[in-house]
């Protein structure tokens, strides 16, 4: 009794229980230990209700698609681009071809939209609004990871390439006609049946460290890539290049073992960026963290994992004719790249206004398209391609088996579900936006019945539960793809369902790229969903020339055709050769092309003049703020 009393005295002053007014209320809850939990549940129920409530207007289909589709240039806040790096007719016919190929309503109109806008590709929004560009301002951009090296010779990572593009100018650029145009090189001559290329280098060019950019710097740049000590990943892009000479300050002579047609495109990309020999002499290994080039922007700082800052090169004279901002330096004072790994956070940053421009994934795109605070730019004839590939083993060595898969894939549903409608169905083993893309190929139709009958011809029989068996044994195939991308994940899940409906049991594995690569090399898979981005027809050689990029290709007939396509410098003749390759790959169904997904950029309203060039680089030199 006494103890109890004491205890009470102790807690007394501490506890509001002692206060009579509060007593009743607290007694209500005292000793009820369920209460916290009940409150938790109530709270959570609230959460659920809000979840369901405020989202009701959001309907299932992606309305943005239609919005974008029916607009020739710009409707609402959506601008569609189709700057395909195709020879004149290629871009338009390419898109029209997609229209005939795609069974899909959305995809069809999408492609048609692209076709009509093709001509508008080069036109910027600034031109459309007709306002004079203003100078100044900081453009806030976002990248998903740290670049590995801001050194053209030391990287093939797209993130690095995109930044290197702004720091380093190249000898040539690829115009919307799909042909090389003068940049640092004033002109060039092809000699010796394509085995010698002589570039005339412009005079008076300077690197941003003040040193002179001449033929010697060009020679230095390419010698560095060719030097095995550099261990340059760009070496493979140099093809048959053997040596570079600089007989005088304005002449650079490139010597090849054999003619190499992709060379112009390859050196127009980030790999061909001309580096300052003085800066490399000075910083050595640290050059990749302190890059110096002659581009429109100067590298200022790189805070690992956080941001990269480039400032305007005030002395820059833009030599490219495909830009609206000709002859001058950039309008922007500065570009900040924030490094944000999580896509949800990137989207939030765009909505919040912390970043001005962001390449959207399909999930975010449907949201931003509906948001009047933003402009949306779509590049429909992009240079990427999603496709299924096979190992070099039974049963996939049989073209008929590969055709089964080609007929079983519902591209329309895939585009809707995996890419939210933001993709163009593709029948060819090449990205829609690449020159030579065969517009007249109808592609394999989505035809499960046909796929099933082909399976029967191959000796497969359905068992009691409708799943296919061969020689009395049930078959299971493995479908693999790389991790980290929601679109890819949705796509394989749908492909799995597609194949199940024709009776094929498929196990899906989504693996990190490094492990995937090992499996691909070993042929330790049945189907692989892959995505490649490459702006030149040489993508065909990269993929299929024996032994193929994964070591799963072996087709001597095709090899000869590829050698011809890569060795032909005349554009028209080359495209013919490329088309022949496509036909062969298509007939053999060496891969099952699925779609080219659109590059979609969401930008704050104030961002003007945004556009892509033919190889997919964003031309920030043209961008200004209203």
């Amino acid at each position, binding site marked *: 009794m006494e103890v109890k009393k004491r205890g009470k005295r102790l807690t007394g002053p501490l506890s509001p229980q002692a206060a009579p007014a509060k007593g009743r209320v607290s007694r209500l809850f005292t000793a009820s230990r369920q209460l916290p*939990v009940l409150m*938790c549940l109530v709270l959570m129920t609230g959460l*659920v209700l809000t979840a369901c409530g405020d989202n009701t207007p959001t309907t299932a289909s992606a309305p943005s698609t239609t919005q974008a589709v029916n607009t020739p240039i710009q409707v609402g806040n959506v601008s569609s681009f189709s700057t395909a790096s195709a020879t004149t007719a290629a871009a338009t016919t390419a898109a029209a071809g997609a229209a005939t190929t795609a069974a899909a309503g959305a995809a069809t109109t999408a492609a048609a939209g692209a076709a009509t806008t093709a001509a508008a590709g080069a036109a910027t929004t600034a031109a459309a609004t007709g306002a004079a560009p203003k100078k100044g301002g900081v453009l806030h951009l976002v990248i998903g990871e740290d670049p590995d090296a801001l050194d053209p010779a030391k990287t093939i990572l797209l993130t690095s390439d995109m930044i290197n593009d702004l720091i380093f100018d190249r000898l040539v650029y690829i115009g919307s006609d799909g042909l090389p145009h003068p940049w640092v090189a004033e002109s060039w001559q092809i000699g010796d049946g394509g085995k010698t290329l002589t570039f005339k280098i412009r005079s008076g060019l300077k690197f941003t460290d003040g040193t002179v950019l001449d033929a010697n710097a060009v020679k230095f740049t390419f010698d560095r890539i060719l030097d095995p000590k550099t261990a340059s990943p760009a070496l493979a892009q140099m093809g048959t290049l053997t040596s570079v000479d600089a007989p005088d300050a304005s002449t650079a002579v490139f010597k090849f073992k054999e003619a190499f047609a992709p060379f112009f495109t390859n050196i127009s990309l980030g790999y061909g960026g001309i580096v300052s020999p003085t800066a490399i002499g000075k910083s050595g290994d640290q050059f990749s963290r302190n890059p110096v080039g002659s581009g429109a922007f100067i590298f200022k700082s790189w805070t690992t994992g956080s941001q990269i800052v480039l400032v305007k090169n005030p002395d820059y004279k833009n030599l490219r004719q495909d830009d609206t901002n000709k002859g001058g330096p950039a309008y922007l004072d500065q570009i900040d790249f924030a490094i944000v790994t999580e896509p949800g956070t990137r989207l939030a940053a765009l909505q919040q206004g912390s970043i001005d421009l962001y390449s959207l994934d399909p999930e975010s795109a*449907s949201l931003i398209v509906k948001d009047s605070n933003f402009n949306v730019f779509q590049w429909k004839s992009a240079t990427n391609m999603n496709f299924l590939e096979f190992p070099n083993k039974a049963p996939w060595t049989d073209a008929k088996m590969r055709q089964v898969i080609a007929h079983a894939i519902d591209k329309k549903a895939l585009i809707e579900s995996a890419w939210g409608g933001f993709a163009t169905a593709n029948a060819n083993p090449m990205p829609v936006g690449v020159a030579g893309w065969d517009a007249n190929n109808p592609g394999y139709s989505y035809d499960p019945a046909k796929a099933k009958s082909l399976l029967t011809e191959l000796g497969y029989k359905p068992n009691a539960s409708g799943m296919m068996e061969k020689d009395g044994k049930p078959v299971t195939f493995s479908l693999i793809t790389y991790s*980290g991308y929601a679109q890819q994940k949705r796509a394989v*899940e*749908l492909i799995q369902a597609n194949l199940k409906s024709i009776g094929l049991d498929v196990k899906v594995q989504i693996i*990190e790229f490094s492990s995937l690569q090992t499996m691909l090399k070993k042929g330790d898979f049945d189907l692989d969903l892959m995505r490649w981005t490459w702006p030149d027809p040489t993508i065909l050689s990269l993929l299929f020339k024996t032994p193929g990029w994964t070591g799963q290709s072996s087709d001597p007939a095709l090899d000869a055709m590829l050698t011809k396509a890569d060795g032909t410098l005349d554009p028209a003749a080359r495209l013919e050769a490329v088309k022949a390759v496509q036909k062969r790959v298509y007939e053999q169904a060496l891969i099952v092309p699925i779609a080219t997904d659109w590059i979609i950029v969401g930008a704050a309203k104030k961002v003007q003049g945004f556009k892509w060039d033919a190889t997919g680089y964003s031309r920030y030199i043209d961008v200004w703020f209203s």
Partner: protein
Amino acid sequence: MPENTKETTTPVAAGSLEPVTLEVGAQNTALEQKTRPFHGLRDFTRRMYRNGSARVGFVLLIVVVGAAILAPVIAPYDPDLTNSPERLQPPSMQHFFGTDALGRDMFSRVLFGAQLTLQIGVIALSIAAFFGIAIGLVTGYYGGFIDGLFMRLIDLLLAFPGILLALMIVSTLGPNLTNAMIAVGISSIPGFARLVRGSVLTIRELEYVTAARAIGVSAPRILWKTVLPNAMAPIIVLATLLFPDAVLVAASLSFIGLGAQPPSPEWGALLVDGRLYIQSASWLITFPGLAIFITIMGSNLVGNALRDVLDPHLRGR
């Protein structure tokens, strides 16, 4: 306090969200009273029932277990059945939890996900408990070189944050649910091992154990018949408290892309798929999130109640 308590009081489970406040000191008193406080199962159940939060916890867990067992019966759709025209439908009478980007019914997926989540928890903890108890018993009882060796190994495991260890194991074995379970299991071994070792160290010196040893009862028999039963209560409590941890680590692995493989409706994986739709279709992230939430809350509540009931030293809070 005996010196070895310094190490053994340092409780358990790096990476555990819930601090495990089982101390050998407390354990000691618990043991002395052990002959007393329990009047068998009935007393135990009565006490558990009297504990309000345990009741709620049990209800929550029963909901989850029920969902797991009955999933094939009550799920209105095949969880993997895609239906593109009905993609991203908000919750409705046809689809209680809405549909995902491929038109799959989220309600069915969450139900089937319960099976996987329980599997993860149970299998991971079984692995951890089996090896942890074995190591703890042997090292605690024999001491000496074996003890030193194993404790250094445990130190080594403890030097990793749980998720880091799991990350390394999964990337070595390959990313799938089974390996995620193994990884989570291995990273929880130290908790059990230290707990059991601590208990054994104190029990070993008790009179009846020394007596048993003196009359020549074999070591395994002593461990099995005498030592283990006495250490059982804290083991059970630890297991209940580590369960949420296992579920969370598995979900985090899925977040990083090293967890369940599609089309598996593991909740962590559902959450990860849904996160890009947090604004446009928030039901995709809300319901799996809630499911995880309920499971963890349920096991936390039950775990705490168990600790209160089984550990008289802490009872009555």
